[in-house]
Protein backbone atom coordinates (compact mmCIF):
# COMPACT_ATOMS: atom_id res chain seq x y z
CA UNK A 1 0.00 0.00 0.00
CA UNK A 2 1.37 3.45 -0.82
CA UNK A 3 2.24 5.87 1.92
CA UNK A 4 -0.92 7.86 2.27
CA UNK A 5 -1.60 9.53 5.53
CA UNK A 6 -5.09 10.39 6.50
CA UNK A 7 -5.14 14.10 5.92
CA UNK A 8 -7.80 15.88 7.93
CA UNK A 9 -10.40 16.97 5.44
CA UNK A 10 -10.42 20.73 5.05
CA UNK A 11 -14.08 21.40 4.66
CA UNK A 12 -15.60 22.60 7.84
CA UNK A 13 -18.43 20.17 8.26
CA UNK A 14 -16.73 16.84 8.16
CA UNK A 15 -13.97 16.71 10.67
CA UNK A 16 -11.91 13.56 10.53
CA UNK A 17 -10.80 13.06 14.06
CA UNK A 18 -7.25 11.90 13.78
CA UNK A 19 -6.23 9.42 16.39
CA UNK A 20 -2.85 11.04 16.91
CA UNK A 21 -2.51 11.72 20.61
CA UNK A 22 -1.68 15.32 21.39
CA UNK A 23 0.66 16.53 24.01
CA UNK A 24 -2.28 18.16 25.68
CA UNK A 25 -3.49 14.85 26.99
CA UNK A 26 -0.66 14.79 29.43
CA UNK A 27 -1.27 18.36 30.46
CA UNK A 28 -4.93 18.21 31.26
CA UNK A 29 -5.21 16.49 34.60
CA UNK A 30 -8.01 14.08 34.00
CA UNK A 31 -8.13 12.68 37.47
CA UNK A 32 -7.04 13.43 41.00
CA UNK A 33 -3.42 13.07 40.00
CA UNK A 34 -2.56 16.41 41.47
CA UNK A 35 -2.68 16.52 45.19
CA UNK A 36 -4.64 19.71 45.77
CA UNK A 37 -7.83 20.57 43.98
CA UNK A 38 -6.29 23.36 41.98
CA UNK A 39 -8.07 25.90 39.82
CA UNK A 40 -7.35 23.77 36.80
CA UNK A 41 -9.13 20.83 38.39
CA UNK A 42 -12.22 22.90 38.97
CA UNK A 43 -12.09 24.32 35.45
CA UNK A 44 -11.89 20.78 34.17
CA UNK A 45 -14.88 19.70 36.25
CA UNK A 46 -16.81 22.76 35.08
CA UNK A 47 -16.04 21.98 31.48
CA UNK A 48 -17.11 18.37 31.94
CA UNK A 49 -20.41 19.46 33.46
CA UNK A 50 -20.89 22.03 30.70
CA UNK A 51 -20.26 19.43 28.00
CA UNK A 52 -22.68 17.05 29.66
CA UNK A 53 -25.21 19.88 29.67
CA UNK A 54 -24.65 20.60 25.99
CA UNK A 55 -25.06 16.94 25.11
CA UNK A 56 -28.24 16.79 27.18
CA UNK A 57 -29.51 19.87 25.34
CA UNK A 58 -28.72 18.20 22.02
CA UNK A 59 -30.28 14.87 22.90
CA UNK A 60 -33.25 15.52 25.16
CA UNK A 61 -35.60 16.83 22.45
CA UNK A 62 -34.73 13.96 20.15
CA UNK A 63 -35.22 11.39 22.88
CA UNK A 64 -38.55 12.96 23.80
CA UNK A 65 -39.70 12.59 20.21
CA UNK A 66 -38.62 8.96 20.10
CA UNK A 67 -40.39 8.21 23.37
CA UNK A 68 -43.58 9.87 22.19
CA UNK A 69 -43.52 7.98 18.90
CA UNK A 70 -44.73 5.01 20.98
CA UNK A 71 -47.41 7.00 22.77
CA UNK A 72 -50.95 6.18 21.77
CA UNK A 73 -52.16 9.71 22.54
CA UNK A 74 -52.58 11.94 19.54
CA UNK A 75 -51.85 15.18 21.36
CA UNK A 76 -48.68 13.72 22.77
CA UNK A 77 -48.33 15.38 26.19
CA UNK A 78 -49.84 12.75 28.41
CA UNK A 79 -48.59 9.19 28.19
CA UNK A 80 -51.58 7.02 27.38
CA UNK A 81 -50.02 3.73 26.46
CA UNK A 82 -47.61 1.92 24.18
CA UNK A 83 -48.45 1.62 20.52
CA UNK A 84 -46.80 0.91 17.19
CA UNK A 85 -49.74 2.39 15.35
CA UNK A 86 -47.90 5.52 14.13
CA UNK A 87 -45.21 3.40 12.54
CA UNK A 88 -47.87 1.43 10.73
CA UNK A 89 -49.57 4.60 9.52
CA UNK A 90 -46.23 5.96 8.44
CA UNK A 91 -45.57 3.07 6.12
CA UNK A 92 -48.99 3.28 4.53
CA UNK A 93 -48.99 7.04 4.09
CA UNK A 94 -48.70 7.32 0.32
CA UNK A 95 -47.39 10.92 0.08
CA UNK A 96 -44.61 10.20 2.57
CA UNK A 97 -43.57 7.05 0.77
CA UNK A 98 -43.58 8.85 -2.56
CA UNK A 99 -41.62 11.76 -1.10
CA UNK A 100 -39.10 9.30 0.25
CA UNK A 101 -38.75 7.68 -3.18
CA UNK A 102 -38.28 11.10 -4.76
CA UNK A 103 -35.63 11.92 -2.19
CA UNK A 104 -33.79 8.71 -3.00
CA UNK A 105 -33.95 9.37 -6.73
CA UNK A 106 -32.74 12.95 -6.42
CA UNK A 107 -30.07 12.17 -3.82
CA UNK A 108 -28.88 9.08 -5.71
CA UNK A 109 -28.53 10.80 -9.05
CA UNK A 110 -26.99 13.94 -7.55
CA UNK A 111 -24.50 11.85 -5.61
CA UNK A 112 -23.38 10.03 -8.74
CA UNK A 113 -22.96 13.29 -10.64
CA UNK A 114 -21.31 15.01 -7.68
CA UNK A 115 -18.82 12.17 -7.24
CA UNK A 116 -17.92 12.21 -10.93
CA UNK A 117 -17.54 15.99 -11.13
CA UNK A 118 -15.84 16.28 -7.76
CA UNK A 119 -13.32 13.46 -8.10
CA UNK A 120 -12.24 14.27 -11.62
CA UNK A 121 -12.16 17.98 -10.87
CA UNK A 122 -10.06 17.51 -7.75
CA UNK A 123 -7.58 15.28 -9.55
CA UNK A 124 -7.18 17.64 -12.50
CA UNK A 125 -6.79 20.69 -10.28
CA UNK A 126 -4.21 18.79 -8.25
CA UNK A 127 -2.23 17.33 -11.11
CA UNK A 128 -2.20 20.27 -13.48
CA UNK A 129 -1.28 23.88 -12.98
CA UNK A 130 -4.08 25.95 -14.47
CA UNK A 131 -4.13 29.61 -15.12
CA UNK A 132 -6.79 31.19 -12.91
CA UNK A 133 -6.53 28.17 -10.59
CA UNK A 134 -7.28 30.36 -7.58
CA UNK A 135 -10.33 31.84 -9.24
CA UNK A 136 -11.60 28.39 -10.16
CA UNK A 137 -11.03 27.16 -6.62
CA UNK A 138 -12.94 30.11 -5.21
CA UNK A 139 -15.79 29.57 -7.64
CA UNK A 140 -16.03 25.94 -6.52
CA UNK A 141 -16.38 27.05 -2.93
CA UNK A 142 -19.23 29.45 -3.76
CA UNK A 143 -22.04 26.84 -3.67
CA UNK A 144 -20.65 25.49 -0.38
CA UNK A 145 -20.76 28.74 1.50
CA UNK A 146 -23.45 30.67 -0.36
CA UNK A 147 -26.72 31.03 1.56
CA UNK A 148 -29.05 28.27 0.42
CA UNK A 149 -31.89 30.63 -0.29
CA UNK A 150 -29.79 32.61 -2.77
CA UNK A 151 -28.77 29.40 -4.56
CA UNK A 152 -32.41 28.40 -4.61
CA UNK A 153 -33.81 31.60 -6.07
CA UNK A 154 -30.98 32.04 -8.56
CA UNK A 155 -31.51 28.52 -9.91
CA UNK A 156 -35.25 29.13 -10.01
CA UNK A 157 -34.85 32.23 -12.16
CA UNK A 158 -32.47 30.34 -14.43
CA UNK A 159 -34.86 27.43 -14.87
CA UNK A 160 -37.85 29.65 -15.52
CA UNK A 161 -35.88 31.78 -17.96
CA UNK A 162 -34.83 28.82 -20.11
CA UNK A 163 -38.31 27.27 -19.73
CA UNK A 164 -36.98 24.18 -18.07
CA UNK A 165 -39.92 22.59 -16.35
CA UNK A 166 -39.46 22.15 -12.61
CA UNK A 167 -39.24 18.48 -11.69
CA UNK A 168 -36.76 15.73 -11.04
CA UNK A 169 -34.27 17.07 -13.55
CA UNK A 170 -34.11 20.56 -12.07
CA UNK A 171 -33.85 19.09 -8.59
CA UNK A 172 -30.93 16.87 -9.62
CA UNK A 173 -29.15 19.78 -11.30
CA UNK A 174 -29.63 21.97 -8.23
CA UNK A 175 -28.59 19.31 -5.74
CA UNK A 176 -25.51 18.33 -7.77
CA UNK A 177 -24.48 21.98 -7.86
CA UNK A 178 -24.30 22.33 -4.11
CA UNK A 179 -23.09 18.76 -3.43
CA UNK A 180 -20.15 18.33 -5.77
CA UNK A 181 -17.88 20.91 -4.13
CA UNK A 182 -18.04 18.88 -0.93
CA UNK A 183 -16.81 15.79 -2.77
CA UNK A 184 -14.15 17.81 -4.54
CA UNK A 185 -12.80 19.30 -1.34
CA UNK A 186 -12.77 15.94 0.44
CA UNK A 187 -10.83 14.38 -2.44
CA UNK A 188 -8.45 17.35 -2.60
CA UNK A 189 -7.59 16.87 1.04
CA UNK A 190 -6.71 13.27 0.38
CA UNK A 191 -4.65 14.21 -2.65
CA UNK A 192 -2.55 16.51 -0.47
CA UNK A 193 -1.07 13.49 1.21
CA UNK A 194 -0.58 11.49 -1.95
CA UNK A 195 2.96 10.65 -3.04
CA UNK A 196 3.54 12.41 -6.39
CA UNK A 197 5.97 9.64 -7.36
CA UNK A 198 3.01 7.28 -7.66
CA UNK A 199 1.67 8.62 -10.91
CA UNK A 200 5.15 9.15 -12.30
CA UNK A 201 6.05 5.54 -11.61
CA UNK A 202 2.91 4.36 -13.38
CA UNK A 203 3.65 6.61 -16.36
CA UNK A 204 7.26 5.40 -16.48
CA UNK A 205 6.02 1.84 -16.59
CA UNK A 206 4.09 2.73 -19.73
CA UNK A 207 0.59 3.49 -18.47
CA UNK A 208 -1.39 6.22 -20.15
CA UNK A 209 -2.42 9.09 -17.84
CA UNK A 210 -6.00 7.80 -17.92
CA UNK A 211 -4.91 4.28 -16.95
CA UNK A 212 -2.62 5.64 -14.27
CA UNK A 213 -5.52 7.56 -12.80
CA UNK A 214 -7.87 4.62 -12.97
CA UNK A 215 -5.50 1.93 -11.71
CA UNK A 216 -3.26 3.79 -9.31
CA UNK A 217 -4.72 7.07 -8.14
CA UNK A 218 -8.39 6.23 -7.83
CA UNK A 219 -7.87 3.24 -5.50
CA UNK A 220 -5.87 5.49 -3.19
CA UNK A 221 -8.60 8.09 -3.22
CA UNK A 222 -11.38 5.65 -2.52
CA UNK A 223 -11.89 6.50 1.18
CA UNK A 224 -12.20 10.19 0.35
CA UNK A 225 -14.48 9.49 -2.61
CA UNK A 226 -16.72 7.33 -0.47
CA UNK A 227 -16.73 9.85 2.37
CA UNK A 228 -17.47 12.69 -0.05
CA UNK A 229 -20.19 10.67 -1.74
CA UNK A 230 -21.85 9.82 1.57
CA UNK A 231 -21.68 13.45 2.52
CA UNK A 232 -23.24 14.52 -0.79
CA UNK A 233 -25.99 11.94 -0.35
CA UNK A 234 -26.81 13.08 3.17
CA UNK A 235 -26.75 16.76 2.27
CA UNK A 236 -29.09 16.10 -0.62
CA UNK A 237 -31.44 13.97 1.47
CA UNK A 238 -31.70 16.73 4.07
CA UNK A 239 -31.96 19.71 1.74
CA UNK A 240 -35.12 21.76 2.11
CA UNK A 241 -34.55 25.38 1.16
CA UNK A 242 -33.11 24.83 -2.31
CA UNK A 243 -35.65 22.08 -2.98
CA UNK A 244 -38.57 24.37 -2.19
CA UNK A 245 -37.53 26.63 -5.05
CA UNK A 246 -36.55 24.00 -7.60
CA UNK A 247 -39.05 21.16 -7.10
CA UNK A 248 -41.95 20.52 -9.43
CA UNK A 249 -45.31 18.94 -8.66
CA UNK A 250 -44.06 15.39 -9.02
CA UNK A 251 -40.74 15.78 -7.23
CA UNK A 252 -41.62 16.68 -3.65
CA UNK A 253 -38.90 15.30 -1.42
CA UNK A 254 -39.10 13.98 2.10
CA UNK A 255 -37.95 17.19 3.83
CA UNK A 256 -40.55 19.15 1.85
CA UNK A 257 -43.25 16.71 2.89
CA UNK A 258 -42.12 16.83 6.51
CA UNK A 259 -42.05 20.62 6.44
CA UNK A 260 -45.59 20.68 5.08
CA UNK A 261 -46.76 18.27 7.77
CA UNK A 262 -44.96 20.10 10.57
CA UNK A 263 -46.57 23.37 9.50
CA UNK A 264 -50.00 21.84 9.81
CA UNK A 265 -49.26 20.92 13.39
CA UNK A 266 -48.21 18.14 15.66
CA UNK A 267 -48.57 14.78 14.09
CA UNK A 268 -47.66 11.52 15.83
CA UNK A 269 -46.55 10.13 12.49
CA UNK A 270 -43.81 12.73 12.48
CA UNK A 271 -42.59 11.43 15.84
CA UNK A 272 -42.30 7.96 14.38
CA UNK A 273 -40.54 9.36 11.35
CA UNK A 274 -38.12 11.23 13.61
CA UNK A 275 -37.30 8.07 15.50
CA UNK A 276 -36.52 6.30 12.24
CA UNK A 277 -34.40 9.25 11.12
CA UNK A 278 -32.40 9.24 14.32
CA UNK A 279 -31.77 5.52 14.25
CA UNK A 280 -30.72 5.73 10.60
CA UNK A 281 -28.43 8.61 11.43
CA UNK A 282 -26.76 6.68 14.22
CA UNK A 283 -26.22 3.75 11.89
CA UNK A 284 -24.87 6.10 9.26
CA UNK A 285 -22.46 7.85 11.62
CA UNK A 286 -21.17 4.52 12.95
CA UNK A 287 -20.71 3.32 9.39
CA UNK A 288 -18.67 6.36 8.30
CA UNK A 289 -16.66 6.08 11.49
CA UNK A 290 -15.96 2.46 10.61
CA UNK A 291 -14.87 3.48 7.09
CA UNK A 292 -12.59 6.14 8.51
CA UNK A 293 -10.97 3.64 10.86
CA UNK A 294 -10.40 1.23 8.01
CA UNK A 295 -8.83 4.04 6.01
CA UNK A 296 -6.47 5.10 8.78
CA UNK A 297 -5.53 1.52 9.54
CA UNK A 298 -4.70 0.92 5.90
CA UNK A 299 -2.45 3.97 5.95
Amino acid at each position, binding site marked *: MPTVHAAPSPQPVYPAASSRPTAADSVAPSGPRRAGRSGAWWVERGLAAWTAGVLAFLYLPILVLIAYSFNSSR*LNVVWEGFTLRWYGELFS*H*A*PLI*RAFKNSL*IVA*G*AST*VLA*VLLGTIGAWLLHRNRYRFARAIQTLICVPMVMPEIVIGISL*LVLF*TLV*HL*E*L*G*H*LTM*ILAHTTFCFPFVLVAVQARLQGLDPALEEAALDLGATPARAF*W*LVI*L*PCLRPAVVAGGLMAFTLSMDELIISIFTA*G*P*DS*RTLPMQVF*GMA*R*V*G*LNPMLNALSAIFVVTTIAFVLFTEHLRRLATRAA
Partner: protein
Amino acid sequence: MKTRNKLLLLGLSLLCAVTVAFGQARKRGELNLFAWSEYIPQAVLDGFTRETGIRVNYETYSSGEEMLARLMARRARFDLIQPPDYIAEALIKNGQLLPIDRSRLSNFGNLMPEFLNMPHDPEQQFTIPYMVGTVGIVVNTERVTEPVRGYADLFSERHAGRIVVVDDGRELATAALYTLGKSINDFSPANLAAIRPVLAEWFSRVKLFDSDSPKTALLSGDVDLGLVWGGEAALLWQENKKFHYVLPEEGAHMFVDLLAIPRRARNVENAHLFIDYILRPEVSKLISDEFPYTNPNRAARKLLSPEQLANPASYPPGDRKFDTFRYLGEDIAEAIDKMMTDLKNARR
Protein backbone atom coordinates in the same frame (compact mmCIF):
# COMPACT_ATOMS: atom_id res chain seq x y z
CA MET B 1 -9.69 -4.40 -7.31
CA LYS B 2 -10.16 -3.81 -11.01
CA THR B 3 -13.34 -5.83 -11.19
CA ARG B 4 -14.66 -4.18 -8.10
CA ASN B 5 -14.20 -0.78 -9.66
CA LYS B 6 -15.94 -1.93 -12.77
CA LEU B 7 -18.79 -3.26 -10.71
CA LEU B 8 -18.99 0.07 -8.95
CA LEU B 9 -19.14 1.90 -12.27
CA LEU B 10 -21.76 -0.51 -13.53
CA GLY B 11 -23.80 0.13 -10.41
CA LEU B 12 -23.56 3.85 -10.83
CA SER B 13 -24.62 3.82 -14.48
CA LEU B 14 -27.48 1.48 -13.61
CA LEU B 15 -28.61 3.94 -10.98
CA CYS B 16 -28.52 6.72 -13.58
CA ALA B 17 -30.47 4.62 -16.05
CA VAL B 18 -33.08 3.69 -13.46
CA THR B 19 -33.46 7.33 -12.52
CA VAL B 20 -34.05 8.36 -16.11
CA ALA B 21 -36.36 5.42 -16.80
CA PHE B 22 -38.29 6.17 -13.65
CA GLY B 23 -38.66 9.77 -14.75
CA GLN B 24 -40.03 8.68 -18.11
CA ALA B 25 -42.35 5.94 -16.95
CA ARG B 26 -44.15 8.04 -14.42
CA LYS B 27 -45.32 10.64 -16.91
CA ARG B 28 -48.18 8.39 -17.98
CA GLY B 29 -51.12 7.86 -15.69
CA GLU B 30 -50.53 10.87 -13.51
CA LEU B 31 -52.46 13.80 -12.18
CA ASN B 32 -50.56 16.78 -10.86
CA LEU B 33 -52.95 18.38 -8.47
CA PHE B 34 -52.30 21.78 -6.91
CA ALA B 35 -54.61 22.50 -4.03
CA TRP B 36 -54.99 24.07 -0.61
CA SER B 37 -53.29 22.28 2.24
CA GLU B 38 -55.67 20.40 4.54
CA TYR B 39 -58.46 20.24 2.00
CA ILE B 40 -58.49 16.93 0.11
CA PRO B 41 -58.61 13.74 2.19
CA GLN B 42 -55.91 11.19 1.48
CA ALA B 43 -58.66 8.56 1.33
CA VAL B 44 -60.20 10.31 -1.68
CA LEU B 45 -56.88 10.42 -3.51
CA ASP B 46 -56.18 6.77 -2.67
CA GLY B 47 -59.66 5.77 -3.81
CA PHE B 48 -59.20 7.58 -7.12
CA THR B 49 -55.85 5.89 -7.69
CA ARG B 50 -57.24 2.48 -6.81
CA GLU B 51 -60.08 2.86 -9.27
CA THR B 52 -58.29 4.47 -12.21
CA GLY B 53 -54.64 3.58 -11.70
CA ILE B 54 -53.82 7.27 -11.99
CA ARG B 55 -51.30 8.52 -9.48
CA VAL B 56 -52.07 11.83 -7.87
CA ASN B 57 -49.29 14.22 -6.91
CA TYR B 58 -50.86 16.57 -4.39
CA GLU B 59 -48.93 19.79 -4.05
CA THR B 60 -50.24 22.37 -1.63
CA TYR B 61 -50.35 26.11 -1.11
CA SER B 62 -51.72 28.21 1.68
CA SER B 63 -53.11 31.30 -0.01
CA GLY B 64 -54.73 32.17 -3.31
CA GLU B 65 -51.90 34.54 -4.14
CA GLU B 66 -49.36 31.80 -3.51
CA MET B 67 -51.21 29.54 -5.92
CA LEU B 68 -51.20 32.21 -8.60
CA ALA B 69 -47.50 32.91 -8.07
CA ARG B 70 -46.48 29.29 -8.30
CA LEU B 71 -48.68 28.66 -11.31
CA MET B 72 -47.77 31.72 -13.34
CA ALA B 73 -44.38 32.99 -12.40
CA ARG B 74 -42.80 29.61 -11.86
CA ARG B 75 -44.35 28.01 -14.91
CA ALA B 76 -45.19 24.92 -12.93
CA ARG B 77 -47.28 22.52 -14.98
CA PHE B 78 -50.26 21.32 -13.06
CA ASP B 79 -53.20 19.38 -14.42
CA LEU B 80 -55.79 20.47 -11.93
CA ILE B 81 -55.85 23.44 -9.61
CA GLN B 82 -58.15 24.52 -6.85
CA PRO B 83 -58.29 28.32 -6.97
CA PRO B 84 -60.57 30.39 -4.77
CA ASP B 85 -63.22 32.35 -6.68
CA TYR B 86 -61.36 35.64 -7.10
CA ILE B 87 -58.13 33.98 -8.26
CA ALA B 88 -60.10 31.92 -10.77
CA GLU B 89 -61.59 35.17 -12.03
CA ALA B 90 -58.09 36.50 -12.76
CA LEU B 91 -57.09 33.28 -14.47
CA ILE B 92 -60.21 33.30 -16.64
CA LYS B 93 -59.72 36.94 -17.62
CA ASN B 94 -56.15 36.20 -18.66
CA GLY B 95 -57.10 33.12 -20.65
CA GLN B 96 -55.19 30.80 -18.36
CA LEU B 97 -57.85 28.11 -17.94
CA LEU B 98 -59.12 25.44 -20.30
CA PRO B 99 -62.88 25.13 -20.70
CA ILE B 100 -64.31 22.17 -18.87
CA ASP B 101 -66.05 19.60 -21.03
CA ARG B 102 -69.28 19.13 -19.14
CA SER B 103 -70.29 16.15 -21.28
CA ARG B 104 -67.54 14.21 -19.53
CA LEU B 105 -68.92 15.01 -16.11
CA SER B 106 -71.76 12.60 -15.45
CA ASN B 107 -72.19 13.91 -11.90
CA PHE B 108 -72.42 17.60 -12.73
CA GLY B 109 -76.13 17.63 -11.95
CA ASN B 110 -75.43 16.99 -8.27
CA LEU B 111 -74.29 20.58 -7.76
CA MET B 112 -76.67 23.06 -6.18
CA PRO B 113 -77.67 25.86 -8.57
CA GLU B 114 -76.94 28.65 -6.10
CA PHE B 115 -73.24 27.87 -6.38
CA LEU B 116 -73.23 27.95 -10.17
CA ASN B 117 -72.90 30.87 -12.60
CA MET B 118 -71.45 33.10 -9.94
CA PRO B 119 -69.73 36.39 -10.89
CA HIS B 120 -66.26 34.87 -11.22
CA ASP B 121 -67.42 32.44 -13.92
CA PRO B 122 -70.83 33.64 -15.16
CA GLU B 123 -71.16 30.94 -17.84
CA GLN B 124 -69.76 28.15 -15.63
CA GLN B 125 -67.40 27.31 -18.46
CA PHE B 126 -64.09 26.98 -16.66
CA THR B 127 -64.71 26.01 -13.07
CA ILE B 128 -66.49 23.47 -10.88
CA PRO B 129 -67.25 24.31 -7.24
CA TYR B 130 -65.31 22.11 -4.81
CA MET B 131 -66.28 23.44 -1.39
CA VAL B 132 -67.76 26.63 -0.07
CA GLY B 133 -67.03 28.31 3.21
CA THR B 134 -67.05 31.38 5.34
CA VAL B 135 -64.37 33.04 7.41
CA GLY B 136 -65.38 33.65 10.99
CA ILE B 137 -64.40 33.80 14.60
CA VAL B 138 -63.78 30.82 16.84
CA VAL B 139 -63.98 31.27 20.59
CA ASN B 140 -62.86 28.79 23.21
CA THR B 141 -65.74 29.49 25.58
CA GLU B 142 -64.02 27.73 28.47
CA ARG B 143 -61.28 30.32 28.50
CA VAL B 144 -63.17 33.32 27.14
CA THR B 145 -66.33 34.20 29.00
CA GLU B 146 -67.06 37.61 27.53
CA PRO B 147 -69.30 37.58 24.48
CA VAL B 148 -67.50 37.91 21.15
CA ARG B 149 -69.74 39.20 18.38
CA GLY B 150 -67.42 40.63 15.82
CA TYR B 151 -63.93 41.73 14.83
CA ALA B 152 -63.91 44.53 17.40
CA ASP B 153 -64.51 42.07 20.26
CA LEU B 154 -62.05 39.53 18.88
CA PHE B 155 -59.15 41.96 18.59
CA SER B 156 -59.91 43.79 21.82
CA GLU B 157 -57.11 44.55 24.23
CA ARG B 158 -58.14 41.90 26.72
CA HIS B 159 -57.50 39.07 24.26
CA ALA B 160 -54.00 40.28 23.32
CA GLY B 161 -51.57 37.43 22.75
CA ARG B 162 -54.31 34.79 22.63
CA ILE B 163 -55.39 35.14 19.01
CA VAL B 164 -54.61 33.11 15.91
CA VAL B 165 -55.56 34.48 12.48
CA VAL B 166 -55.25 33.12 8.98
CA ASP B 167 -52.00 34.28 7.38
CA ASP B 168 -53.79 35.81 4.42
CA GLY B 169 -53.46 39.49 3.66
CA ARG B 170 -56.65 39.79 1.67
CA GLU B 171 -58.75 38.16 4.42
CA LEU B 172 -57.34 40.35 7.17
CA ALA B 173 -57.62 43.52 5.10
CA THR B 174 -61.23 42.60 4.35
CA ALA B 175 -62.00 42.20 8.04
CA ALA B 176 -60.59 45.67 8.61
CA LEU B 177 -62.74 47.09 5.80
CA TYR B 178 -65.80 45.54 7.41
CA THR B 179 -65.13 47.20 10.75
CA LEU B 180 -64.88 50.55 8.98
CA GLY B 181 -68.13 49.84 7.19
CA LYS B 182 -66.59 50.00 3.72
CA SER B 183 -67.17 47.86 0.65
CA ILE B 184 -64.88 44.86 0.81
CA ASN B 185 -63.82 45.00 -2.81
CA ASP B 186 -62.72 48.60 -2.67
CA PHE B 187 -59.03 48.92 -1.91
CA SER B 188 -58.69 52.50 -3.03
CA PRO B 189 -55.65 54.33 -1.65
CA ALA B 190 -57.95 56.09 0.80
CA ASN B 191 -59.34 52.79 2.08
CA LEU B 192 -55.89 51.23 2.25
CA ALA B 193 -54.73 54.15 4.34
CA ALA B 194 -57.80 53.85 6.53
CA ILE B 195 -57.36 50.17 7.36
CA ARG B 196 -53.67 50.49 8.14
CA PRO B 197 -54.00 51.74 11.73
CA VAL B 198 -56.78 49.23 12.39
CA LEU B 199 -54.61 46.34 11.26
CA ALA B 200 -51.58 47.69 13.10
CA GLU B 201 -53.52 47.56 16.35
CA TRP B 202 -54.85 44.08 15.61
CA PHE B 203 -51.47 42.68 14.65
CA SER B 204 -49.93 43.79 17.91
CA ARG B 205 -52.39 41.47 19.67
CA VAL B 206 -52.12 38.46 17.36
CA LYS B 207 -50.01 35.60 18.60
CA LEU B 208 -49.87 33.44 15.52
CA PHE B 209 -50.51 33.75 11.79
CA ASP B 210 -51.38 30.37 10.33
CA SER B 211 -53.37 29.58 7.21
CA ASP B 212 -52.53 25.90 6.98
CA SER B 213 -54.10 24.71 10.19
CA PRO B 214 -55.17 27.46 12.58
CA LYS B 215 -57.16 24.87 14.53
CA THR B 216 -53.98 23.26 15.83
CA ALA B 217 -53.04 26.17 18.08
CA LEU B 218 -56.63 26.43 19.35
CA LEU B 219 -56.80 22.71 20.09
CA SER B 220 -53.47 22.63 21.86
CA GLY B 221 -54.47 25.63 23.97
CA ASP B 222 -51.75 27.95 22.66
CA VAL B 223 -54.45 30.46 21.76
CA ASP B 224 -58.10 30.90 22.76
CA LEU B 225 -59.61 32.84 19.89
CA GLY B 226 -59.17 32.83 16.17
CA LEU B 227 -60.18 34.23 12.83
CA VAL B 228 -60.26 31.02 10.83
CA TRP B 229 -61.71 29.20 7.85
CA GLY B 230 -65.21 27.87 8.51
CA GLY B 231 -64.15 24.28 7.92
CA GLU B 232 -61.45 24.54 10.56
CA ALA B 233 -64.01 25.94 12.98
CA ALA B 234 -66.35 23.08 12.14
CA LEU B 235 -63.62 20.58 12.96
CA LEU B 236 -63.02 22.28 16.28
CA TRP B 237 -66.72 22.13 17.07
CA GLN B 238 -66.75 18.42 16.23
CA GLU B 239 -63.80 17.93 18.53
CA ASN B 240 -65.24 19.87 21.43
CA LYS B 241 -68.42 21.89 21.74
CA LYS B 242 -66.58 24.53 23.74
CA PHE B 243 -65.39 26.02 20.46
CA HIS B 244 -68.09 28.38 19.25
CA TYR B 245 -68.22 29.76 15.73
CA VAL B 246 -69.29 33.35 15.30
CA LEU B 247 -69.97 35.11 12.03
CA PRO B 248 -68.78 38.67 12.67
CA GLU B 249 -71.59 41.16 13.04
CA GLU B 250 -69.66 43.75 11.02
CA GLY B 251 -69.96 41.52 7.97
CA ALA B 252 -68.77 38.22 6.61
CA HIS B 253 -67.90 36.91 3.21
CA MET B 254 -68.18 33.56 1.53
CA PHE B 255 -65.52 31.91 -0.55
CA VAL B 256 -66.00 29.26 -3.19
CA ASP B 257 -63.03 27.05 -3.93
CA LEU B 258 -63.15 25.70 -7.42
CA LEU B 259 -61.59 23.01 -9.51
CA ALA B 260 -60.11 24.23 -12.78
CA ILE B 261 -57.75 23.01 -15.47
CA PRO B 262 -54.85 25.31 -16.32
CA ARG B 263 -54.04 26.09 -19.93
CA ARG B 264 -50.73 24.22 -19.84
CA ALA B 265 -52.15 21.06 -18.27
CA ARG B 266 -50.76 17.84 -19.66
CA ASN B 267 -53.30 15.31 -18.41
CA VAL B 268 -56.58 17.00 -19.28
CA GLU B 269 -58.40 13.68 -19.53
CA ASN B 270 -57.28 12.66 -16.04
CA ALA B 271 -58.30 16.03 -14.67
CA HIS B 272 -61.85 15.51 -15.97
CA LEU B 273 -61.91 12.03 -14.47
CA PHE B 274 -60.87 13.44 -11.12
CA ILE B 275 -63.47 16.23 -11.19
CA ASP B 276 -66.20 13.75 -11.97
CA TYR B 277 -64.95 11.48 -9.21
CA ILE B 278 -65.10 14.35 -6.72
CA LEU B 279 -68.69 15.11 -7.75
CA ARG B 280 -69.89 11.64 -6.78
CA PRO B 281 -72.08 11.91 -3.71
CA GLU B 282 -70.24 9.27 -1.69
CA VAL B 283 -66.83 10.81 -2.49
CA SER B 284 -68.04 14.30 -1.74
CA LYS B 285 -69.35 13.00 1.57
CA LEU B 286 -65.86 11.67 2.40
CA ILE B 287 -64.52 15.18 1.89
CA SER B 288 -67.18 16.64 4.15
CA ASP B 289 -66.38 14.04 6.80
CA GLU B 290 -62.78 15.11 6.99
CA PHE B 291 -62.97 18.78 6.04
CA PRO B 292 -66.47 19.96 6.96
CA TYR B 293 -66.85 23.04 4.79
CA THR B 294 -70.17 23.86 3.16
CA ASN B 295 -70.78 21.15 0.60
CA PRO B 296 -72.26 22.48 -2.68
CA ASN B 297 -73.21 18.95 -3.75
CA ARG B 298 -76.89 18.34 -3.04
CA ALA B 299 -76.71 14.57 -3.44
CA ALA B 300 -73.81 14.45 -1.02
CA ARG B 301 -75.60 16.57 1.56
CA LYS B 302 -78.32 13.94 1.68
CA LEU B 303 -75.73 11.43 2.86
CA LEU B 304 -74.51 13.59 5.72
CA SER B 305 -75.58 12.89 9.27
CA PRO B 306 -77.98 15.32 11.02
CA GLU B 307 -75.14 16.25 13.34
CA GLN B 308 -72.91 17.22 10.43
CA LEU B 309 -75.68 19.33 8.93
CA ALA B 310 -76.27 20.98 12.28
CA ASN B 311 -72.67 22.11 12.58
CA PRO B 312 -73.02 25.90 12.64
CA ALA B 313 -69.61 26.44 11.11
CA SER B 314 -70.35 24.27 8.10
CA TYR B 315 -73.94 25.29 7.51
CA PRO B 316 -74.54 28.65 9.16
CA PRO B 317 -78.13 28.88 10.36
CA GLY B 318 -80.37 31.63 9.10
CA ASP B 319 -80.53 33.39 5.79
CA ARG B 320 -77.54 35.62 6.07
CA LYS B 321 -76.29 37.24 2.91
CA PHE B 322 -72.57 36.88 2.22
CA ASP B 323 -70.27 39.00 0.09
CA THR B 324 -67.73 37.49 -2.27
CA PHE B 325 -64.22 38.58 -3.32
CA ARG B 326 -63.46 39.99 -6.73
CA TYR B 327 -60.04 40.04 -8.33
CA LEU B 328 -58.49 43.49 -8.02
CA GLY B 329 -55.18 43.17 -9.84
CA GLU B 330 -51.60 42.61 -8.80
CA ASP B 331 -50.98 46.17 -7.73
CA ILE B 332 -53.63 45.91 -5.04
CA ALA B 333 -52.41 42.44 -4.08
CA GLU B 334 -48.89 43.76 -3.75
CA ALA B 335 -49.99 46.83 -1.80
CA ILE B 336 -51.78 44.54 0.66
CA ASP B 337 -48.84 42.18 0.88
CA LYS B 338 -46.46 45.06 1.51
CA MET B 339 -48.70 46.39 4.24
CA MET B 340 -48.81 42.96 5.89
CA THR B 341 -45.02 42.65 5.83
CA ASP B 342 -44.72 46.15 7.19
CA LEU B 343 -47.21 45.72 10.00
CA LYS B 344 -45.97 42.30 11.06
CA ASN B 345 -42.50 43.72 11.43
CA ALA B 346 -43.40 46.95 13.14
CA ARG B 347 -42.04 47.68 16.59
CA ARG B 348 -40.80 44.38 17.83
